């Protein structure tokens, strides 16, 4: 979820007096994996460019000295072509005691370009020649000693995923050398790199492996599209089955067996203190606790995040992490490119959009890899409007699903159409043009079970730490808003919008406004309002499309700035009202 873990993660912050060591390299060469190995701090890594968009910092303990190790965002060049490269270039210009330049051994020539730029800036460098285990399959042979001599700095072969060579990097940091290369032009740099490659690297021709065939197939004009659609359908099917399975067979029975008896006892004790009973247990329905509707802190407040939402978080990230680590994700960029171009975006926007299906916050942060501010604005706005996060989706499936699958389908279809229509309008009305896709597609890699489970655990833990307090705060505010009657006045004031325009009961205004806090809680509040299935669909769509939740709001503010945020928010509100009203008219209900 990473809701508030955006810009900078500091673990055991070391004081400024300690030296800085930078971890620099092209995107997707395994910097984050090396970072994790060196510091023990978990950095999210995947098999596609741009997983680290901010920068991470950790401690590197060398015995006599402790350094601050900074995981610099991936860059192909220090003449920035996007925001991540700007950040990288700035950090490197600030200088450091030493830079560990991570090179992908399977693409040495291109990787050396950045290494040269770092050397030219006079930083002492140790080179980590990563993924050396992959070179053999590719028929590449590198003379490491010669490379070391020609570059004039230590070169350490590493395999970050297994930890091979990591200790040697640490041992050789004291040997770091400044390069002997003056600042030079691009052409001269390439010539020099060409010379090095010629004398250190031999490539033997080999037959196409199964992996090569698979790599070609998944971007084939016909089979690429087919596998893309199949992969997405299969992913969502697994997410849904796994999520439902976890709920019905594990979490719901456990909650009922272990926690409900405690709640009942508590309810008996608190029955004479109505205020506390209301706050902690919530309202009783026919004398019993209703886990979805009671809205007490310890009843619904725990049931919603732990039983209704958590299973979908786990199942979503289980599948997403697999797509990330195999390297499939960026191939979707190729498949969706021409579609996204109609919205002023390019294909890589599919990656932030899919991340947004887990939580909008990392999704919006991931839009930083897009080249222009126009693209970032369109993508961030569209994600906030039309990409429901896993929490909201879990509640939609749990609540709207009670009336049948067709209603869920209407909600999703409306969001999908809105994504396209709003994107199209923004593309046609905003000044500027849409940049073209230029991306490196990573080789497929067999995901490591350990890395996958660690990543799943960190994402799940992130959700538990960040979401549960917000859910509880939401429930507290709901109780205060209802018991003081504030919500009644707000609803009354908004009656023209909710009642006349959207055809919803006046009380529906409450949950939709409280969606500002967390949308899954808001969705939970819709249950207790007496509505027809059609009205529930309109309320759900309005809730999903209008204001972002507080965490998304903060990150939008940081990414877009106040002025564009205001624009984005107006687009969200107008879109939600238009879509809600149209849906009401189409579904033809009256109040």
């Amino acid at each position, binding site marked *: 979820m990473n809701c508030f873990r955006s810009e900078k993660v500091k673990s055991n912050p070391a004081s400024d007096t300690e030296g800085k060591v930078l971890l620099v390299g092209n995107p997707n060469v395994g910097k984050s994996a090396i970072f994790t190995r060196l510091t023990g701090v978990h950095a999210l890594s995947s098999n596609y460019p741009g997983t680290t968009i901010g920068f991470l910092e950790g401690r590197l303990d060398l015995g006599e000295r402790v350094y601050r190790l900074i995981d610099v965002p991936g860059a*192909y060049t220090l003449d920035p072509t996007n925001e991540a490269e700007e950040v990288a270039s700035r950090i490197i210009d600030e200088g450091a005691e030493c830079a560990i330049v991570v090179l992908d051994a399977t693409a040495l020539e291109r990787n050396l370009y950045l290494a040269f730029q770092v050397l030219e800036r006079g930083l002492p460098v140790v080179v980590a020649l990563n993924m050396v285990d992959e070179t053999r399959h590719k028929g590449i042979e590198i003379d490491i000693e010669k490379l070391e001599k020609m570059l004039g700095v230590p070169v350490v072969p590493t395999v970050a995923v297994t930890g091979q060579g990591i200790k040697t990097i640490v041992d050789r940091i004291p040997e770091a050398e400044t390069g002997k290369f003056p600042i030079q032009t691009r052409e001269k740099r390439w010539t020099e790199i060409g010379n090095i490659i010629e004398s250190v690297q031999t490539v033997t021709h080999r037959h196409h492996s199964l992996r090569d065939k698979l790599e070609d197939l998944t971007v084939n*004009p016909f089979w690429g599209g087919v596998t893309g659609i199949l992969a997405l359908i299969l992913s969502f099917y697994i997410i849904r089955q796994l999520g439902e399975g976890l709920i019905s067979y594990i979490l719901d029975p456990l909650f009922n067996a272990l926690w409900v008896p405690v709640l009942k006892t508590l309810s008996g004790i608190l029955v004479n203190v109505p205020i506390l009973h209301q706050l902690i247990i919530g309202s009783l329905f026919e004398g019993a606790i209703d886990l979805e509707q009671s809205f007490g802190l310890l009843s619904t407040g725990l049931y919603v995040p732990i039983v209704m939402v958590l299973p979908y978080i786990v199942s979503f990230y289980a599948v997403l992490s697999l797509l990330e680590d195999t390297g499939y994700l960026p191939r979707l*960029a190729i498949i969706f490119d021409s579609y996204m171009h109609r919205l002023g975006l390019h294909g890589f926007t599919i990656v932030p959009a899919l991340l947004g299906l887990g939580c909008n916050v990392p999704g919006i942060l991931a839009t930083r890899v897009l080249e222009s501010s126009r693209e970032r604005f369109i993508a961030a706005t569209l994600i906030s409007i039309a990409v429901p996060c896993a929490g909201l989706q879990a509640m939609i499936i749990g609540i709207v699903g009670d009336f049948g699958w067709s209603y869920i389908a209407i909600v999703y279809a409306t969001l999908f159409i809105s994504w396209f229509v709003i994107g199209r309008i923004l593309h046609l009305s905003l000044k500027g043009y849409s940049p073209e*896709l*230029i991306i*490196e597609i990573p080789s497929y890699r067999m995901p490591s079970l350990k890395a996958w489970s660690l990543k799943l655990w960190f994402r799940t833990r992130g959700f538990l730490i960040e979401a549960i307090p917000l859910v509880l705060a939401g429930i507290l505010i709901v109780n205060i808003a209802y018991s003081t009657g504030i919500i009644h006045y707000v609803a009354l004031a908004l009656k023209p919008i909710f009642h006349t325009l959207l055809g919803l009961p006046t009380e529906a205004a409450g949950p939709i406004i409280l969606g500002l806090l967390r949308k899954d809680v808001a969705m939970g509040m819709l249950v207790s309002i007496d509505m027809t299935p059609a009205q529930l669909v309109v309320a759900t769509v309005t809730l999903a499309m209008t204001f972002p939740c507080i965490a998304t709001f903060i990150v939008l503010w940081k990414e877009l700035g106040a002025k564009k945020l205001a624009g984005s928010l107006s687009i969200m509100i107008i879109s939600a009202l238009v879509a809600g009203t149209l849906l009401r008219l189409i579904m033809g209900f009256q109040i």
Partner: protein
Amino acid sequence: MAMPITLHMLKNGDEGIIEAIPSGECARRLYALGLREGKKIRKVSGMPFHGPVTIILEGRQIAIGNRIARRIMVTPLSKV
């Protein structure tokens, strides 16, 4: 020697030598990925509906937007 054609025109599966890269912002991004004049590439595919072109450069796939692929010139290598 064959005449240079656009990357967009190169047949899927064919190899070619990059002759010219369009100038401008996108050139910097192409250079950053190691694509430059004189490099040998193989075209993997071009997606329908003006979709991107995927090439292999130094054993690595790179996807390039359609409008740029129409401005990159390559000399096709005749097959042996």
